[in-house]
């Protein structure tokens, strides 16, 4: 393999990893507080992509309005999902929550199927994201460069909120002990809603960038990226934001480089991710950055 192709693949891996990371953060944040794997999280990619499509095609909004609008709306749908599917089950056993999450996922997918239909829609890709530039003799899509940069911006904003603000402190406290957080006079339900808002918005941003990269939008487009991001979150150590990012990059780079070095394994790309999940669960269930299991039950 020539150096050019290697760098091309590397940049592809980084941008794919960024997308996994953005989506994985939402899984990990919700898990951190509710100990719930929100299986409907991946479907928010689809929700955001369709919202963006309709904002552009039906209301003819420019992309720089329609994308933020889609992110905001998807964030609100995240809150709604919590209110409808999870909040009534706060005191129920965790398995009920998990089943409710799977239900929410099927509901979103099939609702989209009924309302919009199963035929893939093309995602309106603005000119500025479609350009191809040459860096040091390597031809890359500008999108491949924008994605990691945007991811970095979102990540910085998120880390600022979680580690430097009052609500962030309350989030970290709630991830340790919800009851005692209530005893601080904190409305934990509001903190949970905020967590869903932030996680879902990041998933929406990831979804829109995903659709820019692979501009075919259908009701099930969120399933595989969602599962991959879940693997990334587990790989990094579920509950840990930095871990989710690290896991996202490891998985994204791993997948792309695997295919680059062993083109004959290209069809096994998804299998590779799931084998990785099984291995992590078997040998290091707390992931790369994970806290010890004994810490909280």
């Amino acid at each position, binding site marked *: 393999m020539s150096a050019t192709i290697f760098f091309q693949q590397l940049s592809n891996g980084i941008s794919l990893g960024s997308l996994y990371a953005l989506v994985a953060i939402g899984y990990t944040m919700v898990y951190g507080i509710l100990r719930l794997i929100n299986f409907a999280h991946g479907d928010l990619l689809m929700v955001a992509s369709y919202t963006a499509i309709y904002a552009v095609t039906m209301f003819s909004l420019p992309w720089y309005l329609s994308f933020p609008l889609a992110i905001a709306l998807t964030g609100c749908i995240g809150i709604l999902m919590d209110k409808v599917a999870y909040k009534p089950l706060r005191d129920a056993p965790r398995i009920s929550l998990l089943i409710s999450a799977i239900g929410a996922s099927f509901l979103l997918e099939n609702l989209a199927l009924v309302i919009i239909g199963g035929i893939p829609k093309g995602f309106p890709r603005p000119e500025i994201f479609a350009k191809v530039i040459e860096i040091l003799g390597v031809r890359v899509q500008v999108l491949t460069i924008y994605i990691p940069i945007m991811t970095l911006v979102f990540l910085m904003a998120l880390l600022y909120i979680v580690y430097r603000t009052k609500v962030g*402190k*309350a989030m*970290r406290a709630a991830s340790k002990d919800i009851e*005692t957080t*209530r*005893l*601080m*006079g904190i*409305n934990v339900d509001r903190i949970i809603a905020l967590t869903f808002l932030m996680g879902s918005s990041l998933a929406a941003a990831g979804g829109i960038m995903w659709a820019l990269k692979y501009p075919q939008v259908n009701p099930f487009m969120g399933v595989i990226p969602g599962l991959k991001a879940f693997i990334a979150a587990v790989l990094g150590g579920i509950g840990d934001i930095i871990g989710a990012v690290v896991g996202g990059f490891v998985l994204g780079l791993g997948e792309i480089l695997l295919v680059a070095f062993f083109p004959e394994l290209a069809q096994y790309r998804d299998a590779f991710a799931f084998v990785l999940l099984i291995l992590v669960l078997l040998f290091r269930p707390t992931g790369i950055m994970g806290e010890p299991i004994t810490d909280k039950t």
Partner: protein
Amino acid sequence: MLEVKNLHVYYGGIHALKGIDLRVKEGQIVTLIGANGAGKSTTLRSIAGLVRPKEGSIVFQGTELTALRTHQVIQQGIGVAPEGRKVFGNLTVLENLELGAYNRPPQEFQTDLEWVFSLFPRLEERSKQLAGTLSGGEQQMLALGRALMSHPKLVLLDEPSLGLAPLVVEEVFETITTINRQGTTVLLVEQNAMAALHVAHYAYVLETGRITLEGTGKELLQDERVRKAYLGE
């Protein structure tokens, strides 16, 4: 200041509190003593809104608390140091204290912090440390300090002496009298009846969900039954 009337609490089919009546007057230290499982913690948890009573009322300064959610109860001016300390081990000492002051106006924070540090100088030394790395005694001080950061009118302390060395227990009880003298009303749940009765103005003895005895701290210290059952004589 706080009046609990005919409080009944059930855990599933278990009748944990069978009609508790108690009063806490402003400026007092009131203690609730009794054996394991007598319902002491359940009483505190009902006041804090963590447990929903089936029957009865809890009135704090004219406000009925049983209808409120926990964070609203706390916002009425009640601080809680829960059983088992429950400090946020993943946050620093300072962050723990900041959470205690969650609903306080930011301009009051520095004054409150200095007050808490004057009560617990050790916390100031360790303010940048993760709370999980503190010793048991220090964690208890942090739990007390965190409860005081909201500048509460009433603090609920659940077994602050549990699992601490005798010297540290003494320190904790000294601090309880200090904050009381500075104007905070205290409702103290304790298994360490001796220490609790010594600092308390008024005391209730709880047995299997019922109050069986009450009186001033001094009276109960002299009471034959209390001496037999709780002071090991």
